[in-house]
């Protein structure tokens, strides 16, 4: 398992992904009086990692609100506040728990603007944390980003870097539409030099090339992007020049950059740490297959995903379950033949 990113921990002047999230909250709560945070664990020293430490003390328990164990009502309440001029972030410490709130996310937030003729603005941000590994098992390990990317009207954002963790959270909250912002605890130690905060327009954000390369295009989002980056480094030592595309925003999805890259490399491996059937990796492959002439492919497109099984708890099975950098390298080499 690749649970630890200690190897790329914070150097001098670097900011971690977790700290980036906290910086974003700090910025939003300081500069936007209509922003508030609500969710389970916000008054806890350990519930949401280090991403919200002491924000309740800094900004008051009226703006950093911990809640009863009522995911559905709390999400609905955040939606209601967003319709009245606020920019709430509702936090679900595990995506699995957020399934209790499916109705408010999928039937409500995603649809209110469209079905009310665009006259209302559900400017709610829903923060879902992927919190897996550690033998937590099937109900505490899910990465269901593909699910939510399937829902029109819901923007879905998956930061892979510390900079994006901060900047895309701010962009999500400043966006007038409902956004699902998904962070992954396996990335919390990942660090970067971060520039000053500027408010990005989320609607202008899309996929980005993180490593240039000519032989194969590796596509990921969130933690899978990190896997691709590490794999690209390893592949380079083996003489394979891999381009890495980080999707960043998976709904609405803009396939242009990936298509352009594969048009050039002729090879694609989509990596996803979600499930395969009707998942995100399949979406990428389908889009590429639809857009590029068969004759331009140098080999068959490929995808590497979780096995289609619930997360196990037992140590050896857990190790078997999660894709690793080595798995990405091996698969990329097989795409290269």
């Amino acid at each position, binding site marked *: 398992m690749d649970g630890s990113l200690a190897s790329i921990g914070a150097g001098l002047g670097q900011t971690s992904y977790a700290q980036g999230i906290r910086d974003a909250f700090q910025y939003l709560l300081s500069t936007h009086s209509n922003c*508030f945070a609500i969710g389970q664990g916000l008054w806890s020293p350990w519930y949401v990692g280090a991403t919200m430490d002491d924000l309740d003390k800094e900004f008051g328990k*009226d703006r950093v609100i911990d*809640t*009863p164990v*009522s995911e*559905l*009502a*709390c*999400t*609905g*309440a*955040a*939606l*209601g*506040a*967003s*319709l*009245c*001029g*606020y920019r*709430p972030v509702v936090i679900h410490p595990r995506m699995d728990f957020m399934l209790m709130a499916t*109705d*408010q996310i999928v*039937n*409500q937030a995603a649809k*209110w*603007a*469209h*079905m*009310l*003729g*665009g*006259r*209302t*603005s559900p*400017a709610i941000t829903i923060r879902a944390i992927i919190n897996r590994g550690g033998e937590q098992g099937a109900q505490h390990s899910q990465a269901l980003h593909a699910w939510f990317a399937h829902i*029109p*009207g819901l*923007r879905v954002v998956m930061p892979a870097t510390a900079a994006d963790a901060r900047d895309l959270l701010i962009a999500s909250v400043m*966006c*007038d*539409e409902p956004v699902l912002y998904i962070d992954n605890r396996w990335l919390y130690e990942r660090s970067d030099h971060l520039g000053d905060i500027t408010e990005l*327009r989320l*609607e202008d954000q899309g996929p980005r090339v993180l490593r240039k390369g000519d032989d194969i295009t590796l596509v990921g989002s969130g933690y899978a992007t990190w896997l691709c980056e590490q794999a690209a480094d390893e592949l380079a030592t083996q003489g394979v020049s891999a381009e890495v595309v980080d999707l960043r925003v998976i709904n*609405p*999805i*803009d396939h242009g950059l990936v298509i352009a890259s594969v048009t050039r490399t002729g090879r694609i491996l989509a990596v996803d740490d979600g499930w395969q059937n009707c998942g995100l990796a399949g979406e990428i492959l389908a889009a590429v297959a639809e857009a590029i002439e068969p004759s331009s492919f140098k080999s068959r497109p490929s995808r590497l995903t979780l096995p289609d099984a619930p997360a196990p708890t037992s140590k050896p099975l857990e190790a078997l379950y999660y894709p690793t950098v080595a798995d990405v390298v091996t698969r990329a080499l097989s795409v290269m033949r």
Partner: protein
Amino acid sequence: MASGRDTTVKGLQAKLGNLAESEYFTPPATKPAGPENDAEYAVKGLDSLADPAFHNAPLDITDWPHDRLRGFLHRMLTIRAVEERLGELVESGDVVCPVHLAIGQEAIPVAVSHHLTPADRVFGAHRSHGHYLALGGDIYQLFAEVLGRADGCSRGMGGSMHLFAPEVGFMGSVPIVAATVPVAVGAALAAKMDKGDAVAVSYFGDGAAEEGVVHESLNLASQMNLPVLFVCENNLYASHMDISQRQPSDSTARFAQANGIPHAVIDGNDVAGTARVAGEMITAARNGGGPSYLEAVTYRWRGHVGPDENTDVGIRRSTAEIAAWKRRDPVARLVAAMTSRGDMSGNEPGAMADAIRDHVDDCAARALEAPYPENSALMDLVYAGSPTPASGGR
């Protein structure tokens, strides 16, 4: 009332008085289960409020000035006329979308809305024409919406079940049962954060009370002391199911009780009485008194959806039951009271109704001629804040 209610555990316990004498105090509080001892576990029911043989006399309108009552009557007649016209348009095939009529239930939103301003935030559900119209929502725009026209209050994108009129405080209705209840709680949270005196109103039905989210919402509102009025329009049915087929009591106020929320169970076909209680509750909310729960008992003359009477469902629904409930007509009872007090002469109500119907017919006729939305609306409104290309389709 300045300090608001004390909703802490200690505060609530203090209100209980001498807990030491309570059965809850001395453990083990052995409470043998079984029919012999059931009385102490019983929950309250509606009793005569659910029985149309009662509460059908003219209203008690003492203390209500003439013009206020005229206003109530005008709004109730408007709702009824609009819904009757909508029923006809369903029958003629002009209206296709599902239409849930609230004929017979007009008094409740009229009474509640009397105390509201456009700064308040009102949410409805699938049966919300009355909620919208009682606030003064535009009649033409309602017809246009139900007919799917671009002039509709939701630009023709929602139909009967998705209404929106923020200019009068109507912040949205949607047909997923109970979905707007937590949304209204959030609007109340926003109102509290605003530090103004706006309140939120959540309309829902007796069936909605079976959705867990209502209970989560009651707890949240109580715990956070939010300015929200829960209005349960208890019409004894959820679609084809009689309330006795769904709940062990026919009164839902027990859920407010369980959450420490002030509540009242009233005759929802008495516009004056309903307005009195709603007014006290809304005033309390404006003054930091937190949530209240108003259970207004009523009855829908038509079936669950469309103009049909649905006499083929439930366990007691029948032509006779409907006829009995028509004798508890909220409109006729108000008219009777006003006429007998001399507020109105014999033919005034009829004339008022005729004028309203003419106006309603005119709105409907114009709506039938209104244009549909542009085709581009389908994709442009998905990300309404900032049109962004979406995928799929042809």
